């Protein structure tokens, strides 16, 4: 188990290094350097050279890479060439916002999908199981921005229960924070829950066919109880895998919802940085996204052996 986790942690560190080189190289390979891009095509060569010198862009790439990496390790993502402001506060703030949004969404999705999927599997022959399957099928087909628009029309514009847009940090007021959180979280969670429900349902169906469920029933457990005691944990492995992928996708995928609800998340910041041709900010944000995705994968990898003892010894 310790070996397994150590291996995963090392893989995580190596992936991070490789990813940072790749991100840095991509940005450096783009035609025209960051100063040129920031100042636009009309800039005089002198102005570009001055900016290059100011930010050390005339240094060799290897040196600049280590400079950038060293900065990030101490929590400094550098300064924007466009606004001249430090990038770190922007990233930290927007990661917090997106983090809250995405984690709340995936938790809600799991809370909806696990009972619903299990129920759909147990009642697969009844109308109720068929209905759940059909609804989740429809849910998958609905893009989340459409869900967001419908939710806003119903719950904000018609009923007036929730504000249609905006964001408030929890420290500024928990009530205001929660009220603004509901609609974006629900619009993200619904679609994810629909997808996850199907995976939960098929995982539970698979598990119910397993011999150990029959053994449990032969011991004297009812079918339903056998599923709860022996089945659900066995069904967890495929579900955790899918939920991990969904969480990673949501990090960037939330950008549309962030735009619709005018939420200063990391997706919105990335869009803005690209629009402003702020290469340093883009580079920093992409790197943070890579880090978050790798962290999610690491967590999922560590969850496997906790769920399944066979993986503890196998790896």
């Amino acid at each position, binding site marked *: 188990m310790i070996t397994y986790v150590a291996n995963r942690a090392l893989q995580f560190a190596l992936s991070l290094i490789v990813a940072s080189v790749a991100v840095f190289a991509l940005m450096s390979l783009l035609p025209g350097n960051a100063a040129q891009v920031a100042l636009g095509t009309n800039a005089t060569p002198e102005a570009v050279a001055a900016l290059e010198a100011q930010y050390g862009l005339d240094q060799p790439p290897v040196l600049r890479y280590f400079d950038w990496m060293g900065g990030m390790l101490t929590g400094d993502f550098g300064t924007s060439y466009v606004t001249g402001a430090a990038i770190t506060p922007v990233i930290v703030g927007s990661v917090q916002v997106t983090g809250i949004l995405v984690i709340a969404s995936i938790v809600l999705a799991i809370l909806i999908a696990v009972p619903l999927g299990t129920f759909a599997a147990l009642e697969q022959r009844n109308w109720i199981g068929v209905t759940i399957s059909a609804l989740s099928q429809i849910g998958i087909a609905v893009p989340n921005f459409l869900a967001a628009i419908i939710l806003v029309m119903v719950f904000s514009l018609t009923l007036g229960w929730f504000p249609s847009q905006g964001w408030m940090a929890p420290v500024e007021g928990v009530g205001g924070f929660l009220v603004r959180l509901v609609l974006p979280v629900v619009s993200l969670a619904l679609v994810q829950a629909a997808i996850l429900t199907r995976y939960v349902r098929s995982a539970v169906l698979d598990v119910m066919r397993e*011999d*150990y469920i029959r053994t449990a*029933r*032969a011991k*004297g457990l*009812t079918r339903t109880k056998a599923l709860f005691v022996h089945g659900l944990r066995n069904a967890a492995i495929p579900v955790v895998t899918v939920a991990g992928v969904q969480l990673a996708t949501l990090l960037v995928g939330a950008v549309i919802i962030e735009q619709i609800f005018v939420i200063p998340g990391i997706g919105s910041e990335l869009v803005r940085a690209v629009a402003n041709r702020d290469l340093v900010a883009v580079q920093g944000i992409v790197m943070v996204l890579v880090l978050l995705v790798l962290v999610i994968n690491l967590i999922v990898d560590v969850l496997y052996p906790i769920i399944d003892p*066979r993986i503890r010894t196998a*790896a």
Partner: protein
Amino acid sequence: MAENLLEVRDLTITPAGADGPVLKDVSLSLAPGERVGLIGESGSGKSLTAQSVMGLLPEELRATGTVSLAGFSGNVLEAKERTLARMRSDIVSMVFQEPMSALNPLMRIGDQIAEALRIHGSTDRRAVPGRVLELLTSVHMPDPEGARYAYPHQMSGGQRQRVMLAIALANTPRLLICDEPTTALDVTVQKHMLDLIAERVAAVEAGLLFITHDLAVVAGVCDRVIVMNSGRIVETGSVHDIFTNPQHEYTRGLLASSDLEATDANGKLFTLKTALAYAGPLGEAGSPPEAGTNPDENVDADVEPTTASAGESGRVRTRAVDSPRAREPELTGQSAPLIEVTGVSKLYKARGLTLRRRSEVQALEDIGFRVSAGQRLGIVGESGSGKSTLLNILSGLDRPTTGHVRVGDVRVESASASALRSLRENLQIVFQDPFASLDPRMRVEDIVSEPLIARGMGRDERLSRVEEMLLAVDLDSAAMRRYPHQFSGGQRQRISIARALVTRPQILIADEPVSALDVSVRAQVLNLLTDLVDDYALTLLFVSHDLGVVQHLCSDIIVMKDGHIVESGTTEDIYANPREEYTQRLIAATPSLAGALASAG
């Protein structure tokens, strides 16, 4: 009603949407403490009967009739799940066939046994750990203390089956049902398991319903036998009566095809069709003994009960390899052998990125043998002995760590991709599982002709070759347009054989080709293999854990254990005087009808 432990009346089971019942008017009873064997092939309805008694029938099946158990009021078939749950394990328990999947992989063994105790609340909570230990000890688990904290994957198949037995007997039920409990186990393990079941059932004075397709297994465990065929009971009687004087034609056929030591006038194994000429396991019925049988054989069997004297003399009825085929060259070979294996070792390393753990598995160590053209070599060993690794290396699917393998003129361990292609045309494999080894989405004609496409052969020529090959394995050409799921296990294995032989290889490797088949089908497939080996002048490598099967088919034998060859020689020699203790144990543990009958008598 209270007289019998189990009373089944007119049990009829119909799948939803099917025209006819799969089980029809089955009636049987079992007295308290009685041990009954339920015998039949797959599809005969024996497992369905058992599941009905447990109330564990799949939902899509409709059952009518009555199933009553002493101590349970009402009809099991009509009871609610909640009522049934209380009855299961308390009155009737079950041990299932597949030990690898019957236990929850995520739960410790001790907890899984304790669960059975807790559900029924019969044991005081504080006494549960002690009782678990007691149960593990009672099934002779090595290190019962440590076994409580083990997970199923840390145990062997035999050990897991012991755990299953401990769970089944946790609440001392009055009836134990065993559904093919030893079919998935190695022969030596099977023998221990059978003894253990008999011992424990006697100790707790429970009744036993023992389901199996293997007649040889049932005799030592049961007093009475019920034979089922196509959803009906065809015959009932004591073990001795059924074995020596079967009344029904089907029972006779089953007996005949189970007996791998008897052959008909043409030197073939008996099948359901040719069973009329079968003289019985002791050869004492009126008909003349088959050609090529050693006349001493019958006397021999009567004098020395086989399976009982494990390891002592290792004696078994030896039968000369049939004289018509005794033309194989000797193991040492005169001219250059077709296959030559020298000093082959294979080492598997488990490796992580960090903290390199030196967990190595020596799968093969210093293996060497030669096979001449036309020879029929049996490779025998239990699971984990390295048989499969050896096959993979022979066929170029895996490379040895050290050593040399030459097949024909191909140096397999260093062969190029094109050399391996020509090797695979010349060397074909029939795999164990006829259900998993055929692509379910391909037609039979495409499956069988696939090896020919690689050769760039035209479609018409391919199809005519396929047709010819299917006829050779006794399938008609109508089979070409059908899909694998439309065939039975035995027919699928014929398709596998046709696919293997379509490239006209010199060498055929059969990897446990009959271990997943019913006995009657097993005899047919073995006969077919024998014919094909003769007709196509094949060199045969036959891998099996079942000595009985190998004995019939092979001229020479290699016995493997833990990656080593422990013994090799001609079949006759090895059976007559096995030198190694391991070989003796293997021979002694191989179930045979005569041996079973002797130990039952």
